[in-house]
């Protein structure tokens, strides 16, 4: 029982035409697996995450299928998706710090939502209180307004609310990036605890910060310019990656103690291609040091090792 995505294509309508944000994504997530979804800004990771729950007004489903626990998720049909939202698939949004209605108390937001989803409030409310205490918030939070809470507290309330009905897939979109280092570790470790306690069967953690994913994710999927570059267990991605983009990305991240004089790190020259009319073949071709004529043809995203897939002619050969 798990998530299976096959050839998913989701484009964005913009003033100058369709931005091909997710251009054919195929991957699986096993039960209990926390998959990190990493990539630089504009690579389509957020679009991929959001499309599994709710397409906002400018997103357009093109093709592909999504299967969750054996049942097909009608991602293209906003109305039919409602049945799956909150119960089976849920999201901690990128804008979590402003996701709560500023003029309502936290408690009434929760009860309104539960009643509207005709969930028995009296059965679920004690569980909500228990989970709030679990994440370090007292029951009194229910009587407070969002403006009275700090960033970290709001983040935790949204995490608890989104996962309240034990969805089998939880998408956490940039949960740590708006927080300070200290609260960042606490919140990230809470995600793992939610999985360990079975509140959530499987999880997609979207972030541009690979070092956070290395701490909490079982596997990491790296995206580049709307395409999947590589998916592998966290250790393999960091220490034994098979895709040039991932390797360059990892090598450009300084750790504490790395000094400019001793070890000169290098970035990746150039810029990601525009997704309005993306180039044919491998999209990293223009910036890749190993590029050769075969790269003019788009490399398939296929297995290159145990639970390790990559889209590059070099590794596949």
């Amino acid at each position, binding site marked *: 029982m798990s998530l299976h995505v096959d050839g998913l294509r989701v484009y964005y309508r913009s003033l100058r035409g369709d931005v091909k944000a997710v251009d054919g994504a195929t991957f699986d997530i096993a039960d209990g697996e926390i998959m990190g979804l990493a990539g630089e800004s504009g690579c389509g990771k957020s679009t991929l995450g959001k499309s599994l729950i709710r397409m906002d007004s400018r997103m357009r489903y093109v093709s592909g299928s999504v299967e969750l626990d054996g049942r097909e998720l009608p991602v293209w049909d906003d109305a039919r998706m409602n049945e799956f939202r909150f119960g089976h698939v849920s999201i901690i949004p990128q804008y979590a710090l402003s996701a709560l209605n500023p003029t309502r108390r936290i408690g009434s937001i929760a009860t309104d939502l539960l009643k509207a989803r005709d969930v028995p409030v009296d059965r679920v409310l004690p569980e909500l209180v228990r989970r709030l205490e679990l994440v370090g918030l007292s029951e009194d939070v229910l009587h407070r307004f969002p403006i009275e809470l700090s960033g970290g507290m709001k983040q935790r309330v949204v995490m608890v609310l989104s996962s309240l009905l034990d969805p089998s897939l939880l998408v956490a979109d940039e949960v740590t990036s708006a927080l300070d280092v*200290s609260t960042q570790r606490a919140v*990230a470790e809470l995600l793992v605890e939610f999985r360990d306690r079975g509140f959530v069967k499987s999880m997609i953690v979207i972030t541009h910060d690979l070092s956070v994913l290395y701490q909490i994710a079982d596997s990491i999927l790296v995206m580049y310019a709307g395409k999947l570059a590589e998916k592998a267990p966290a250790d393999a991605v960091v220490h034994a990656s098979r895709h040039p983009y991932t390797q*360059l990305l990892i090598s450009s991240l*300084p*750790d*504490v103690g790395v000094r*400019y004089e001793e070890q*000169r*790190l290098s*970035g990746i020259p150039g810029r990601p291609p525009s997704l309005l009319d993306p180039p044919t073949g491998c999209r990293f071709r223009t910036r890749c040091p190993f590029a050769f004529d075969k790269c003019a043809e788009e490399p398939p995203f296929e297995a290159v090792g145990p639970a390790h897939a990559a889209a590059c002619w070099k590794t596949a050969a």
Partner: protein
Amino acid sequence: MLSVDTCCKTYRVGAFGGGELLAVRDVSFEVAPGEVVALIGESGSGKSTIGKLILRLLRVTRGSIAFDGVDISTLEGRRLKEYYGNVQGVFQDPFSSYNPIFKADRVFTMLRREYFPGLTDSEWHAKLGASLDAVSLNPGDVLHKYPHQLSGGQLQRMLIARALLLDIKLLVADEIISMLDASTRIDVLNLLGDLKSRGLGILFITHDLNLGSYISDRTMILRRGAVVELGSTERVFGNPRHPYTQSLLASVPQLHRRWSEVAPSPAASGGGGDGGPLVMVEKDHYAAAGPATTVGG
């Protein structure tokens, strides 16, 4: 070169400015010529305020800031312009640092009109070309373009090039790479490293410990407006003495080490004294005195 002496800054907050927020509390430090000092602190720690105070975008409530011995709060008009000839700033959001109405290279022409009115066109283009080259940007790619047609990395480097036009002595870099992608971030850092080796003093303000440690000679850790640890980067990162620094280092995600291998840090915000006086714990390494500060060897 730059010396900050027990500086304080309070903001008026609340309805009708009743309440007061103490953003910076008795901060003192120096920046020697050609030295890179990293100013590290979480949001709300007052690090940006210190940057703005040095750039005279804000006025000090108490204490003083001196550049080459001259108290900058007294500078007005022409002398302030001279000061800006020696000290310049680059800010966090590349897209907010450019007026979206105009082309990106207007930041250069603005400078030319104020500082180099006498220069002929050819002399100006030569000078501009040199500073763009210093930041490894090719004029053809970046001139006569609108901000949204350029990448964050290019825009930030143009701002640095702008500062170099004035052959400044001190650059205040306030979170200049936190909005950039990892791949382009490191190039800008390396650029700062090159400039340092050519004698430019840099005050590198960031919340990211990894970046701070990469290029700085000395590091200062800030918490709620007060300095909790100050010293050479190796010592502060290698042998942190203040509990707040220790908890930061424990919780910052690293690629070579998992959190599970490190004892969970005490709740960082609560731990440690609150801005006690700085005490020398070892050569060129100071920490705010407090119950949990390990002063010993």
